[in-house]
């Protein structure tokens, strides 16, 4: 039915099956949209946020998807600026994943603010000293970059490409993509960093507060670093999941290996930096405010030292060791476990820097604040996931996302024939 739209030389499932899955995922999306509308029309009283938890699940989700969407800027940097040519075979997917992550982040922010119609104030009345201003500016600009990077992909659709203007536009955009990618890397460096700075500048919150260099706390660099490390891991993970669902190889293993190796070294160096940061914070910064390290990890039902072990050892040291060794990368099980752990590590780190910051009592006569999201918060957080799946389904079906798909398919068929 829609075969004229499907890229040449590749196989896709039947239109009926495709639509059925769109409907199933669309139902989840609809659930999220209902919750989103409730929040917009009835207000944030629909959430379980409160005056102690002004920042809650959404902000965590926001930080997490931005970190994971970091695969787009870092892969783009490696491919276009540093010149790792093999990565051209995964850059499209990295861009698509980044586009989904960043559009989701912007949507979440639009739901999260109390007066969505005043959202533009952050641009118009910008306070240049606020980390959040920098986040908003760079996030929006980088989303524009991702849109610019995604447009040529749409234009490469078989039917759209037949229009000479679109064909030429796509060609020209590819031609100067290095400029867009470099701008994207510049913007990403700052907004990933500013997200790291967002909790760390809160000098009234000793759990979050970090010292740093000039106006930037150490977590500014740590967040950018971890996004560059865990973002590509997320790209690898989603590629692997897509390959499992489509039951075909979409990207050659050498490409995955290269990206995994680079991500591994980024993760390893990040983990070392994170350990140093944690050590300094625990022994110097926090005690200066009158807090013992264990004050942050005791007398509450959830946050114990386990979370630090999970983040740094299980999701930092272990995946680093796997990814930087050839043996580790060669084993499919170890490779996927490692990228999964790295992704989990980024999510745990962002959780700690948002939710645990809010939970820790600062006044001596207050106790820990615990929070569980309302269904509206959960639904609106799942909404971007459903939206992402749908966009991937549509893009995979109609756009030439994976340049190696056709030849890998041919090789597979040939090997079966032999």
């Amino acid at each position: 039915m829609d075969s004229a739209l499907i890229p040449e030389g590749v196989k896709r499932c039947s239109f009926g099956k495709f639509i059925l899955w769109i409907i199933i995922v669309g139902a989840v999306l609809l659930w999220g949209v209902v919750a989103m509308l409730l929040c917009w029309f009835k207000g944030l009283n629909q959430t379980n946020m409160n005056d102690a938890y002004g920042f809650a699940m959404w902000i965590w989700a926001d930080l997490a998807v931005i970190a994971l969407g970091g695969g787009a800027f870092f892969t783009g940097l490696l491919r276009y600026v540093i010149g790792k040519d093999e990565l051209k075979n995964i850059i499209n997917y990295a861009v698509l994943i980044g586009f989904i992550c960043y559009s989701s982040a912007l949507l979440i922010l639009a739901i999260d603010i109390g007066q969505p119609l005043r959202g533009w104030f952050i641009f118009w009345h910008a306070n240049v000293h606020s980390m959040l201003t920098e986040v908003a500016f760079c996030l929006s600009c980088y989303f524009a970059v991702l849109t610019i990077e995604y447009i040529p992909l749409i234009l490469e659709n078989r039917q759209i490409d037949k229009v000479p203007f679109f064909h030429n536009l796509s060609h020209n955009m590819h031609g100067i993509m290095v400029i867009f990618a470099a701008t994207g890397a510049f913007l990403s460096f700052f907004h990933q960093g500013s997200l790291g700075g967002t909790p760390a500048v809160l000098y009234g919150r000793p759990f979050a507060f970090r010292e740093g260099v000039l106006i930037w706390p150490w977590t500014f660099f740590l967040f950018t670093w971890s996004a560059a490390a865990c973002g590509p891991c997320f790209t690898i993970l989603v590629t692997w999941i897509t390959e499992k669902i489509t039951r075909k190889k979409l990207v050659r293993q050498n490409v995955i290996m290269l990206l995994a190796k680079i991500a591994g070294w980024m993760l390893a160096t990040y983990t070392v930096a994170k350990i140093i940061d944690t050590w300094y914070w625990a022994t110097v910064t926090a005690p200066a405010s009158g807090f013992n390290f264990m004050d942050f990890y005791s007398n509450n039902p959830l946050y114990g030292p386990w979370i630090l072990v999970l983040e740094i050892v299980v999701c930092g040291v272990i995946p680093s060791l796997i990814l930087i060794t050839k043996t580790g990368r060669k084993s499919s099980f170890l490779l996927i476990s490692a990228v999964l752990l790295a992704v989990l590590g980024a999510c745990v780190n962002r959780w700690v820097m948002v939710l645990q910051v809010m939970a820790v009592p600062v006044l001596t006569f207050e106790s820990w604040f615990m929070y569980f999201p309302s269904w509206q918060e959960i639904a609106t957080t799942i909404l971007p996931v459903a939206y992402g799946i749908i966009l991937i389904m549509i893009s995979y079906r109609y756009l030439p996302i994976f340049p190696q798909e056709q030849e890998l398919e041919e090789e597979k068929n040939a090997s079966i024939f032999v």
Partner: protein
Amino acid sequence: MKEEHKHGKASKFGMVIDLDKCTGCGSCMVACMSENNVPFKKDETNKLDSITWLRIYKLTNGKKFPETDICYIPRPCMQCEGDHGHSPCVSVCPATATDYNHETGIVSQIYTRCFGCRYCMAACPYHARYFNWWDPVWPDGMEKYLSPNVSPRMRGVVEKCSFCFHRYQLAKNKAYAQGRRELKEDEYQTACTQACPAGAITFGDLNNSHHAVYKLVKPDNKHGGRPRNPNAFRLLERLGTNPKVYYLSSREWVRRAGDNYIKDEVKKEHH
């Protein structure tokens, strides 16, 4: 803001609360809510989503009878000065919706500018900032009794204690009309100060050595206004927020409850 700073000597309004006098009666809270049109809900039991610009905390020394002791701590906005106006909340607001006034030392909140990101709330260690989770709904007829000098706030914005800034403006207007530039001590007083039946709250200009607040705490303005009076303390002094709300207590355990100390650390008195 910077222009105003140039004219004459800037004030630094502050509050001193004598915790040995406070009985925890809550008059200050009621006066504050009434004065500032603070919205309320039918059910105010959940203190985490109801608005109390000034909230009273109850502290105990944790000891058994007969050594047991309690203390009530009224907590308005601390109007932190931070490092030269770099208060925790002001610096983080992305839309310049909150500002540190160098003429008065008061941290303002511009409700029509705030778009409800709540970053300032995350920044405030005192939980002095409140979000309007609901639109304000007044019982029938009560809207007629709202103060015309304070704008009610809409759903989705942050609000907080303003040291009854409208009273400052009214007093200033009156003084200007009379050809004066300086306010007398009693011309500008907050609602909570006047409502306290025990006289536990004192309000005035910390930069003016004739004012009672200055005499009570003897602020060391070269060191962020640290109190020189050994019985005076500020909440979370070590964080460097430099609040302009001071507490007085003759009880060591109360003063110690004002800040965090690592295990076995001896409190350093600033004098």
